[in-house]
């Protein structure tokens, strides 16, 4: 009956009641939204960083290296030499070293060149492998691709699809029209940036970028890939973009088919054809003298050439490290402190530093949100008190019926609970819906996956609003109780 009376009185002033509910709802919604976003960002950043205990990259900004490698954002730093990668791999402090090469994209999804070891890589020895092929199979040759879960979910690509990579980080860049990738697998979701990656054999990257190098004194038109002269020179391992030829330049995309001394390459011919008396190592595309032999289109990898080439590994943009242990991780970090051309970063440490910076702003926001909530509660309770003053005659009627002081206070508290409770719950729904909408809308635009899970902090905001509101509501309830209502009869 007390609830019925309380609700009945609120229903008599629907506009006022609705306005109070809206005020509470909007304030709580703002707090819930920001709390969800903050929590989601922290969680997203943590999940994204977790698979990368240590990353080695070229000298430069540690944040840029982390952004590029961990979050697939920003531009890559320079490359690491093949020797550096070999040294890291052989380092006794390293249990696993996975090469990563960036530089191309498809429809905005970053293409990461790597090798098959990435499918066995785990951040820590006892962890399960980080990336698992959920459908199809892992890549086994250049220009085979395994796509991230979100790439598949977005409908951008499916198993069996073919595509051409685009140079650079933007979907509207130069198309590597000469190389056709084929999707052979889809990764299981990892709830991180690598849901948006396209993994491929690292040799694909080397081959693709082989076409972007200068020659002395001439330019190739895009697509002009088959016929130009080289005069007895060698490419260094991994030297795919910019190397000198005698008196000519290659235009971007001008890759495969040009004359060398006494032989022709056919377009795309990179893998398997005969040269005189030598073999290329896997991925060794560009580093050989072209004396007296022909390449055939598409023929890239393992074939004999008549020049003196050894086994080489190409350049990489970054190396993911699984250290042997904590001590070894520290020793490795010390070793790279003095390295002139490479740096080792702990992405988690950088993110913690970032959190610390964000945290200062977050503290201010929390304080502001708290003040805003308290002010809102004050306004609502004061309004309810004024409404109670207008209903003193009805309070007097209740007293005539035999209502005790406690029952009159409880009627006030029920009214406070209705307004604050409904407002807080509606605010929670609005704030959560806003956050979910943002998470959905930005799902394919941001590197950090905002988790759509039930978060504790927004619920605490709702609970605290209701509890504090009801406790504070005792004050106007008791003030009303002590008003002389009988004189209103």
């Amino acid at each position: 009956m007390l609830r019925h009376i309380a609700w009945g009185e609120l229903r008599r002033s629907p506009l006022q009641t609705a306005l109070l509910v809206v005020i509470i709802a909007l304030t709580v919604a703002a707090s819930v939204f920001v709390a969800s976003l903050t929590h989601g960002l922290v969680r997203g950043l943590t999940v994204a960083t977790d698979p990368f205990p240590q990353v080695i990259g070229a000298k430069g900004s540690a944040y840029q290296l982390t952004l590029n490698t961990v979050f697939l954002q920003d531009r890559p730093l320079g490359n690491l030499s093949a020797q550096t990668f070999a040294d890291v791999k052989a380092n006794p402090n390293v249990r696993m070293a996975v090469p990563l090469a960036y530089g191309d994209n498809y429809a905005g999804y970053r293409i990461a060149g790597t090798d098959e070891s990435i499918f066995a890589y785990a951040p820590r020895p006892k962890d399960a492998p980080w990336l698992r092929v959920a459908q199809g199979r892992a890549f086994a040759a250049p220009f085979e691709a395994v796509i991230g879960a979100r790439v598949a979910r977005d409908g951008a690509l499916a198993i069996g699809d073919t595509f051409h990579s685009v140079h650079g980080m933007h979907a509207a860049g130069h198309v590597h029209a000469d190389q056709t990738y084929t999707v052979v697998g889809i990764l299981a979701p990892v709830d991180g940036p690598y849901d948006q990656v396209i993994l491929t054999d690292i040799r694909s990257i080397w081959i693709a970028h082989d076409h972007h190098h200068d020659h002395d004194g001439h330019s190739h038109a895009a697509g002009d890939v088959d016929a130009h002269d080289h005069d007895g020179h060698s490419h260094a391992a991994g030297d795919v973009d910019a190397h000198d030829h005698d008196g000519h330049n290659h235009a971007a995309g001008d890759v495969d088919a040009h004359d060398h001394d006494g032989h022709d390459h056919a377009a795309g011919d990179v893998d398997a054809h005969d040269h005189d008396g030598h073999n290329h190592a896997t991925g060794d595309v560009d580093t050989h003298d072209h004396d007296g032999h022909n390449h055939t289109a598409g023929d890239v990898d393992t074939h004999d050439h008549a020049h003196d080439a050894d086994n080489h590994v190409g350049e990489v943009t970054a190396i993911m490290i699984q250290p042997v242990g904590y001590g070894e991780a520290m020793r490795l970090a010390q070793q790279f402190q003095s390295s002139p051309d490479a740096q080792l970063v702990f992405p988690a440490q950088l993110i913690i530093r970032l959190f610390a910076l964000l945290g200062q702003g977050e503290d201010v926001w929390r304080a502001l949100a708290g003040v805003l909530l308290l002010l809102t509660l004050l306004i609502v309770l004061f309004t309810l008190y004024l409404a109670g003053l207008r209903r003193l005659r009805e309070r007097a009627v209740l007293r005539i019926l035999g209502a005790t002081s406690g029952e009159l206070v409880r009627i006030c508290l029920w009214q406070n609970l209705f307004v604050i409770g409904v407002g807080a719950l509606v605010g929670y729904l609005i704030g959560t819906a806003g956050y979910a909408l943002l998470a959905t809308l930005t799902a394919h635009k941001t590197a950090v996956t905002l988790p759509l899970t039930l978060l504790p902090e927004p619920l605490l905001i709702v609970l605290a609003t209701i509890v504090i509101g009801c406790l504070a509501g005792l004050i106007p309830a008791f003030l009303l109780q002590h008003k002389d209502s009988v004189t209103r009869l």
Partner: protein
Amino acid sequence: MLVLNDIHHLYPDGETAREVLTLPRWEIADGEQWALIGPSGSGKSTLLHCIAGLITPTHGTVTIDDECMSAATEEVRARRRGESIGYVLQQFNLLSSLTVMDNVRAGAYFGRTPASDGEITELLTQLGIAHLAGSRSDRLSMGEQQRTAIARALIKRPRYLIADEPTANLDRDNTKRIIDTLLDYSRTTGATLIVATHDPAVMAHFARQMQLPQGGI
């Protein structure tokens, strides 16, 4: 037995106090029907509030069944009022946000007297307002409001029934119906009835009358 002894009540009037009620002694036996009469401002409503325990007289005692109400706490007075006293006001005495049915339910609830919907409907039928059970009380005529207020007072079967000018705004037919209802209840249940009025037609129904002069006796 209801006994009022040496009652004086003062209201603040600027820096002084104005005496609005003086009553040397009034004893009312169980089951008696009394008319409390006097001109406007004679203190009728104040006296009824004292009897109901809504206010404590500035001086004097109100004793109900040997229990001194004027010395009791608000909590005790509220419970006694709820359980034993049915109070009908002159006007505006319904909870306007509730229906007729819910107003009567509220009477039973605060009277700590369980009442089924069937009992409430039966009472409303006796008072001729059963068809208004679902109507909001602020949409009723004055006569319908008064009958609803009487139903709400009677549903808890009070031992003391107090009515303050219950027919002040009613026509003759409604006045007769209301007074008959109150008297019938008193006679059939043995409840004590006190009706404040300045209407001679109402006074005529009562053999016992207590006269309050302007500003008290």
